[in-house]
């Protein structure tokens, strides 16, 4: 039971929901940069939501399975085909043994592909996610290369019941989009927020710099002069934290960010908008909108309730 990587694309990695509880050892949570997209894709094929799948970013990816499987994907603007059949986003599709899954970025961003059973690489420190900086987890601690052979785990009962209900190639069930779409990332105030810096952050349009990666989005085109350019005593940072280094160009931390940092934390992108941040590519424009902490938490609770309702709906139909 293997998914062969015929074409690996660039920075294609095995990811799940990441590592929990290891920050004190400097181990970053990592995992799918938009964990909701991965979770929905997993639910659509009958997997537990945090099974390991494949995160694609740029370049064409072709995978070939040697067993009959179900697949689903979510994320940015991609074209994903099995043979001639175009697989719509957030649907479940049947792929037969020997068939290839073709993933082509259109406008691109990032996409997450779930395969029924999940990618069965060894669990390291409680997760199958690839930690690219520390070179462990996922497939050999690195991005996929042509010729890699990803082991697949056995399918759940839910998977086989879904397969029975799937008359054609593409399912009549689908998931709603939970990732908000927009050009604004919503933020809440950070510890080192001040009204002067905040006003500049909210008033300007920024551009994502070329050297952005899974650790963070480096922003340019709207310098903010730090009121106090000295480094602070290092303390914890998190995905979503907007740091302001002395250069005045803010950095939005993403899932693979360091666990601690010494730059001022001026604001934080709210958790429900991290999936949107994960879709930003170099040269994309980005703006920020300020909301209150309580609203951010309410949005996150609402989203988790929606995901739970969707899961319950699937279980009611196939369970």
């Amino acid at each position: 039971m293997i998914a062969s990587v015929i074409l690996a694309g660039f920075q294609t990695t095995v990811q799940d929901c990441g590592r929990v509880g290891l920050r004190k050892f400097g181990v970053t949570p990592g995992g799918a940069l938009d964990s909701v997209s991965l979770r929905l894709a997993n639910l659509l094929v009958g997997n537990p939501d945090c099974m390991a799948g494949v995160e694609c970013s740029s370049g064409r990816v072709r995978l070939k399975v040697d067993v009959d499987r179900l697949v689903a994907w979510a994320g940015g603007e991609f074209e994903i085909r099995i043979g001639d059949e175009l697989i719509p986003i957030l649907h479940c599709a049947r792929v037969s043994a020997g068939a290839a899954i073709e993933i082509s970025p259109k406008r691109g961003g990032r996409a997450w592909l779930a395969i029924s059973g999940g990618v069965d690489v060894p669990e390291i420190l409680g997760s199958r996610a690839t930690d690219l900086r520390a070179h462990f987890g996922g497939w050999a601690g690195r991005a996929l290369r042509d010729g890699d052979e990803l082991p697949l785990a056995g399918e759940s009962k839910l998977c086989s019941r879904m397969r029975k209900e799937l008359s054609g190639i593409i399912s009549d069930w689908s998931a709603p989009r939970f990732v908000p779409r927009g050009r604004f990332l919503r933020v809440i105030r950070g510890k080192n927020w001040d009204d002067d810096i905040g006003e500049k952050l909210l008033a300007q349009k920024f551009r994502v710099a070329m050297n952005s990666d899974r650790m963070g989005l480096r922003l340019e085109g709207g310098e903010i002069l730090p009121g106090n350019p000295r480094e602070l005593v290092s303390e914890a940072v998190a995905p979503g934290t907007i740091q302001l280094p002395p250069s005045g160009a803010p950095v939005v931390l993403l899932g693979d960010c360091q666990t601690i940092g010494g730059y001022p934390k001026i604001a934080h992108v709210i958790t429900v908008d991290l999936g949107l941040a994960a879709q930003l590519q170099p040269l994309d424009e980005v703006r920020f909108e300020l909301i209150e902490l309580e609203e951010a938490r309410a949005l996150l609770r609402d989203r988790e309730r929606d995901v739970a309702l969707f899961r319950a709906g699937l279980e009611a139909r196939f369970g």
Partner: protein
Amino acid sequence: MKISPLGDSALTLDFADESSDRARLLARTLSAAERLEGANLPGVMDVTCAYESVAVFFDPARIEQDFEDKIGALVSSAGFRAPRKARKIEIPVCYDDEFALDLARVASQTFLTGDAIITLHSSIEYTVACIGFVPGFPFLAGLSDKLRVPRLESPRTKVPAGSVAIANAQAGIYPFESPGGWNVIGRTPLRLFRATENPPTLLRPGDRVRFRRITRAQFDAEQE
């Protein structure tokens, strides 16, 4: 103590206003972190500490109404005492030229001989203030003021695994090959990070660390 939100799913507890003594602040954060970890509050997913602060990561959908009050109460009762007897760990270091990439630079900036630098570096007991930058990288407090040198102006793209380095008031060790801007003055044969073990790091916050000078032959013999 000051509590501030670290995004919508975490809080930072900052103890800087409780003392001006760094060692005391570190003991304070370690005892607070240990108390919070032991409390197993509903919804808490991770507790971590660094220098003067503790961060608590949680799931906002699962925490209770009086979450912040409970944290406040737990932390006040944790006091200042170091929570456990500190572990003492010795790190063998070979300071030979081959490994000490920046020793000459440090010598010219500090007006000390290479031997004097090595003696100063290996005669002090350090405390692990936190682990970060990359998994297993210890930030060691206690470096002699005489060894204060700034970071490299342009960081190296590849610092070899095991490199023992200094920058400003701190000492550190690179657990694996990574980019870095600290002054490398030696190399340890020990492995500081093993992803296949849990806990994965040789060192933990609060540990006391000493460096022991070894020869190149000992380095080869002790290489892990």
